[in-house]
């Protein structure tokens, strides 16, 4: 982290801060507004951890007390820096923007639904790309959704409707907890695009996936989304067989071993043929 950040973090990385009150000419210590406390450890681990605070925030923040109007300064959005950005071409920011504009979030809230509503600029980590642990990817990803959809206060800042209780609206889903722990919300709530790492077209709730077979089958959608990247990586390292057996997860119906499937069909077929032949011989003998 750049050294100049320590100037800000002296106060903003702590729950209390001190300053010299020039009016009263006394040293004063106060509580920091908890929403303005920065977790400096998570900040450094995040994708923007190398940034100076003033790269995004106004340099006028360097003086205290801060000018109240600074709160209204327009902050850069992802696309302001990453639009047409060749360094991060792989992330397809422009396509993400395009997709996002089709999403229910944009439809309902327009421009006020910024990327940072889900992707906290201070702490964001590209877990789906960097982590090899599916559970970590799932929980990191789902916490982005839950930060509003399971938090009435934050939900209220975006919607006048009452936040639906997640366990209730998902009560049709068998093994709900297991699904919540193992599968990302976006698996059912977005349109999966083949050419894309993470789809950003969040669907209206009526259009969310509700068909078990879409995931629990040999052509499981999860292979196109959650396990896509991992499988590609594993395949390049161990070949197709390696990817099959080192897969971390098991999904009923989706993890079929083609060899065992073929073998089971052959054995079943032979048993049926054997029985049929035996039966025919019995009938022939009886009729004699």
């Amino acid at each position, binding site marked *: 982290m750049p050294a100049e950040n320590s100037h800000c973090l002296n106060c903003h990385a702590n729950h209390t801060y001190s300053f010299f009150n020039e009016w009263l000419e006394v040293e004063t210590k106060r509580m920091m507004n908890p929403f303005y406390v920065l977790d400096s450890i998570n900040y450094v681990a995040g994708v923007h951890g190398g940034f100076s605070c003033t790269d995004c925030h106004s340099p006028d923040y360097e003086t205290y007390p801060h000018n109240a109007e600074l709160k209204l300064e327009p902050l850069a959005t992802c696309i302001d820096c990453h639009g047409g950005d060749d360094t991060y071409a792989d992330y397809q920011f422009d396509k993400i923007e395009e997709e996002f504009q089709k999403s229910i979030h944009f439809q309902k809230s327009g421009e006020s639904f910024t990327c940072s509503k889900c992707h906290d600029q201070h702490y964001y980590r590209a877990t789906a790309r960097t982590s090899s642990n599916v559970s970590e990817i799932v929980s990191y990803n789902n916490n982005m959704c839950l930060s509003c959809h399971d938090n009435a206060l934050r939900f209220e800042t975006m919607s006048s409707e009452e936040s639906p209780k997640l366990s209730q609206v998902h009560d*049709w*889903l*068998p*093994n709900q907890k*297991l699904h919540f722990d193992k599968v990302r919300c976006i698996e059912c709530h977005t349109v999966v695009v083949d050419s894309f790492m993470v789809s950003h077209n969040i669907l209206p709730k009526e259009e969310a996936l509700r*068909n*078990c*077979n879409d995931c*629990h*089958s*040999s*052509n499981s959608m999860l292979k196109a989304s959650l396990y896509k990247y991992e499988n590609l990586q594993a395949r390049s390292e161990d070949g197709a067989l390696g990817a099959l*057996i*080192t*897969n*971390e*997860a*098991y999904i*009923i*119906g989706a*993890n*079929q*071993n083609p060899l*065992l499937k073929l073998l*089971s069909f052959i*054995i*079943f077929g032979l*048993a*049926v043929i054997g*029985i049929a032949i*035996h*039966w025919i*011989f*019995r009938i022939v*003998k009886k009729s004699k």
Partner: protein
Amino acid sequence: MTAENNKIYLYPVWLRIWHGINAIGIILLILTGIRLQYSELSLMPMDFSLAVQLHNIFGIIVTVNYFIFFVGNLVTPNKKYYKIKPKGLVKRVTKQVNYYISGLFKGEESPFPISEKRKFNPLQKYAYIFVMYVFVPVAIVTGIALLFPELIIEQVYSVSGVFLTAILHGSVGFLISIFLLIHIYVASIGKNPLDNFRSIVNGYHDVHPSEKNKKS
């Protein structure tokens, strides 16, 4: 000779109750299991989540029921039918196999006719031992593990523990269904194809004159 004398009581009440529950349970487990494993083939018009629930419920019923079989065979005389006799085992099983594939069609008598001392022919006996003391317990243990996946070792070398358990569960389930197929077919071999099915319901086995003569 009265009609009563032609019958031997082979299947006690507890055994018939166990067998009835087990039969319904296993059939439903196989059907729902196929529905879950081969969901893309749409072999059955059943809701996936309903199939999951039924599979779990009947899995538990068959598990509890298994203990009736296990304990029953420990404390009642029925255990004698499951005693492994290694001497001449292969020879006896081969003899029975030969009967099924050739003797039966030449009109030969069954080499091991049913009596009170011998409920099962050798092939039947060892098939049952395998299914009831190997396959079904493996299906039960792996099934419980899949119901509570947090119990399973996460990784065995680089392979997922859940994945291994599921493969084993599916494979053993498949072997049980092959057994069931043959079991039902062989049960239809008899004087009348329905004889054996009637016996497992009312407990009595009709001894045919030829068997009776052999016995005396």
